[in-house]
C-alpha cells in the first residue's frame, strides 16, 4: 500500500517536508510503548502511535521504519519533524483514535502484524 492509500484509509495528512512517494507499507503496528515496537515489528511497517516525543522518531530510525502516523489529533514537535526529515521518515497525523485507525487500515487491506511468535 502506498502512503497516499494509507492517508486515504486512515484520514491522515502528511506533515509538510516529510513526503515520500517511494514507501510501500506491508504491515502495521499500533503501540505507545517503543520497547514493544522494537520487540515485535517487521519490515515495511507503518507505526501508529499516540506517543509524542523524540524517542518515537529515534525508534523508527533504528528499526528502519519509514512511516509513522500520530493518532488522536496529536502533532509532532519541530525537533521530531527535523529528525524525521534527516532520516527520510514520513510523518502523518490523523484525528482517529488508535483502535479505529488500525481497524480502517486492516479493512483497507493491510493485514500483517508483528514478526515474532508470542509464547
Amino acid at each position, binding site marked *: 500500500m502506498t502512503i497516499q492509500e494509507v492517508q486515504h484509509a486512515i484520514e491522515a495528512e502528511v506533515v509538510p517536508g516529510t513526503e515520500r512517494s517511494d514507501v510501500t507499507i506491508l504491515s502495521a503496528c499500533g503501540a505507545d*510503548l517503543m*520497547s514493544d515496537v*522494537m*520487540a515485535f515489528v517487521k519490515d515495511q511497517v507503518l507505526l501508529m502511535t499516540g506517543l509524542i516525543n523524540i*524517542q518515537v522518531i*529515534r525508534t523508527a*530510525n*533504528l528499526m528502519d521504519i519509514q512511516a509513522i502516523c500520530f493518532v488522536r489529533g496529536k502533532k509532532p514537535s519541530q*525537533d521530531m519533524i527535523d529528525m524525521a526529515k534527516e532520516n527520510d521518515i514520513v510523518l502523518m497525523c490523523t484525528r482517529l483514535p488508535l483502535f479505529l485507525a488500525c481497524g480502517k487500515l486492516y479493512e483497507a487491506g493491510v493485514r500483517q502484524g508483528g514478526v515474532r511468535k508470542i509464547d
Partner: protein
Amino acid sequence: MKYHYEVPGDDFSRAGNASAEMKKTLQRLGIPASVIKRTAVAMYEAEINMVVHAGGGEADITIEPNLITIEMTDHGPGIPDLAQAMQDGWSSAPDLVRELGFGAGMGLPNMKRNSDEMTIETGPDKGTKVTMKIHVPEAF
C-alpha cells in the same frame, strides 16, 4: 575498530544518540542491514536503561570482521534480581518513563533477543556492565 561514546544521564531526549551514530558507522562499513538493526536495537535499549536506571554511562563498541561487541558500562545501583529483570514485561521503571514510551519490561529481553551472546555483570552499588556480541555472517 573501536568506538567510544558517553551516554549522558540527565537528558532523556539524547538517549539513543550513540546508537544512531553507531548505525550510521555500520552502514558506512557495509555491514548487512539485518545485523545493523539488531546492533542498533540492542544498544538503544541499553542506552535507555542507562539513562532511566543508572544516571548514564559509557558505550564501547569493537568491530571485528565477523563480530560486533557492544560493552555498556554504568555506575548505577546494579540490578538486584537479574532473573526477574530478564522476564518479558517485568519493569522497575517509574511511571514517568512509561509516559515517555519505555518501561514496558522489554528492554533486557530485547537486548538478549537481538544478541548472539549476552553477559551481565552487576551487583549492589557496583554498577552494571552488559556485554553483547553479535555475529556478522560474512566478512566485509
